[in-house]
């Protein structure tokens, strides 16, 4: 082991702790800070914001964060890698430069281009790309006219290129989540795309840290063994040039890093573990060794990669109708029986009104909403939350559902409450269409100011 770099992750998703990245910068040494803001359908929200306002379409939270930490980033020379650029990294950079200027700070910001193929979809289909659904095999034609956004999970070498050109902040759109951590390692150590075991190691490291505190004691089975969850430390990768790495967190923070907290996260959202496909490599998650070094340090080594696939994954989002859900709390004697009656009443009344839905759901929170009938139902239940939902292409019909919830408080059984926040309204369903595109059709570019 020789050179080492410290790559932290302070944001596992848009909506994660806003203080975690600040604490990572202030509580100890790090070289890189990675921040993930994009879930599968986030880009569709951004795409629509951009259609309304050409200067929108990125994660505003990220700009607020940089406003808080910019002087410290510069004085400590911490580099930031984020996908906060969304569908408009140029506008995000402009917003950041404005903040920097106001603080009298000069900063180099690199943006990654080429992932957003929304405007080129027709071109690609005309040239024979079928965009068939990767999971269901359905034809793209069935949703072609409803598409909200289309982004390619591009490779991580473009992140390294932006860093090579001196960027202190790298703003991407749709790169892979693990790529945010792999990119800095490629830049620092000069790893080549054909050094597949090294690329696999960086990808595994990024996979472990991509969900923030889920590898440092968050969402952990033995939650009662985790100390000081209130001050949970977010993860840090100590990456070595030879591809071995250690998962840890800052000294003095809460949480827990051990064999099980890291292993649980390795299993998170896992498909076939012997073929974890990223844009850069295919990782064999059954290959490596994991050693608990104690004191919140876990070492991973001997990671094996397989050659990358010839295609990139594409994340397409599309309009798929409307949905609404509403809930009521039912309490007192025979709470569950009364809740079942309330559900039956509401469905019957909607049927009387001519509303039959494409899909509907009836759930009893506190009883069976998460685990169905796996658990036996306790004899004495003090209260139960009834949650109803509907889905349909007809927006009016979905809104009609929202009007049928409150009346049962006065015209149904007793002990019904918890109707707050007004009538549930129809919400657009933005569905996710995973597909593939040949790599040679995608041209990525890096632009550092």
């Amino acid at each position, binding site marked *: 082991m020789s050179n080492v770099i410290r790559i932290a992750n302070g944001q596992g998703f848009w909506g994660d702790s806003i203080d975690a990245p600040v604490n990572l910068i202030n509580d100890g040494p790090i070289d890189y800070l990675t921040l993930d803001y994009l879930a*599968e*359908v986030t880009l569709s929200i951004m795409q629509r914001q951009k259609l309304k306002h050409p200067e929108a379409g990125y994660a505003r939270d990220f700009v607020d964060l940089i406003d808080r930490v910019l002087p410290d980033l510069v004085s400590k020379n911490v580099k930031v890698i984020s996908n906060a650029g969304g569908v408009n990294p140029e506008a995000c950079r402009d917003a950041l430069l404005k903040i920097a200027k106001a603080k009298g700070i000069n900063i180099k910001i690199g943006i990654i281009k080429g992932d957003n193929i929304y405007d080129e979809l027709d071109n690609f289909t005309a040239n024979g790309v079928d965009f068939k659904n990767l*999971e269901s095999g359905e034809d793209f034609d069935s949703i072609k006219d409803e598409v909200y956004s289309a982004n390619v999970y591009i490779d991580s070498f473009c992140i390294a290129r932006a860093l090579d050109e001196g960027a202190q902040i790298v703003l991407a759109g749709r790169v892979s989540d693990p790529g945010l951590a792999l990119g800095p390692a490629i830049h620092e150590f000069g790893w080549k795309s054909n050094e597949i075991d090294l690329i696999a190691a960086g990808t595994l490291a990024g996979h472990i840290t991509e969900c923030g505190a*889920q590898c440092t004691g968050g*969402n*952990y*089975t*033995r939650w009662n063994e985790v100390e000081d969850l209130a001050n949970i430390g977010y993860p840090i990768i100590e990456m070595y040039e030879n591809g071995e790495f250690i998962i840890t967190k800052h000294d003095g923070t809460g949480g827990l890093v051990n064999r*099980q907290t890291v*292993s*649980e*996260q*390795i*299993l*998170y*959202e*896992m*498909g*076939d*573990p*012997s073929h974890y496909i990223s844009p850069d490599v295919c990782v064999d*998650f*059954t*290959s*490596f*060794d*994991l050693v608990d070094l104690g004191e919140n340090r876990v070492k991973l080594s001997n990671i094996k990669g397989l050659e990358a696939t010839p295609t990139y994954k594409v994340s397409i989002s599309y309009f*798929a109708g409307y*949905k609404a*859900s509403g809930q009521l709390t039912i309490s007192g004697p025979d709470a569950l029986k009364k809740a079942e009656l309330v559900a039956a009443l509401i469905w019957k009344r909607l049927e009387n009104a001519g509303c039959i839905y494409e*899909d*509907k*759901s009836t*759930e009893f*929170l506190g009883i069976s*909403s*998460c*685990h*169905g*009938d*796996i*658990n036996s139902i306790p004899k004495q239940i003090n209260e139960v939350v009834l*949650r109803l*939902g*509907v*889905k349909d292409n007809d927006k009016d019909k979905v809104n009609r559902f929202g009007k049928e919830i409150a009346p049962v408080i006065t015209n149904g059984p007793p002990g019904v409450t918890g109707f707050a926040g007004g009538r549930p309204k129809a919400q657009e*369903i*933005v*569905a*996710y269409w*995973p597909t593939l595109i040949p790599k040679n059709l995608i041209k990525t570019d890096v632009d550092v100011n």
Partner: protein
Amino acid sequence: MKIELKKIAHARSGDKGPNSNVGLLFRHPEVYNWARKIITSTVVKSHFGSVVKGDVRRYEMDNLWALNFILGDSLGGGGSESLLNDAQGKTHGQALLLMEVDFPENLEVFINE
């Protein structure tokens, strides 16, 4: 003796499109070697009952002492299309830990270890 998996295993779950996955992790290789013979995809499918509408697939990870289960069609469509409270299968791991198994006497030393 009959025990629930929570006494010998860890679990974490999440979504994979319309399916969920549950990683089931053991703390000792001896327990893992017993589990990979006993906790089959059939047993898991039957435990989840109406929650899992599709097939269950199982993968082994000897290096982590872990089994990975893919629970087919378990999210009411998944993502934003789902009407379910747990549209992402975040709680399916906890459900698997409630499964009761016949645990062999020679491994009882590992219970709650």
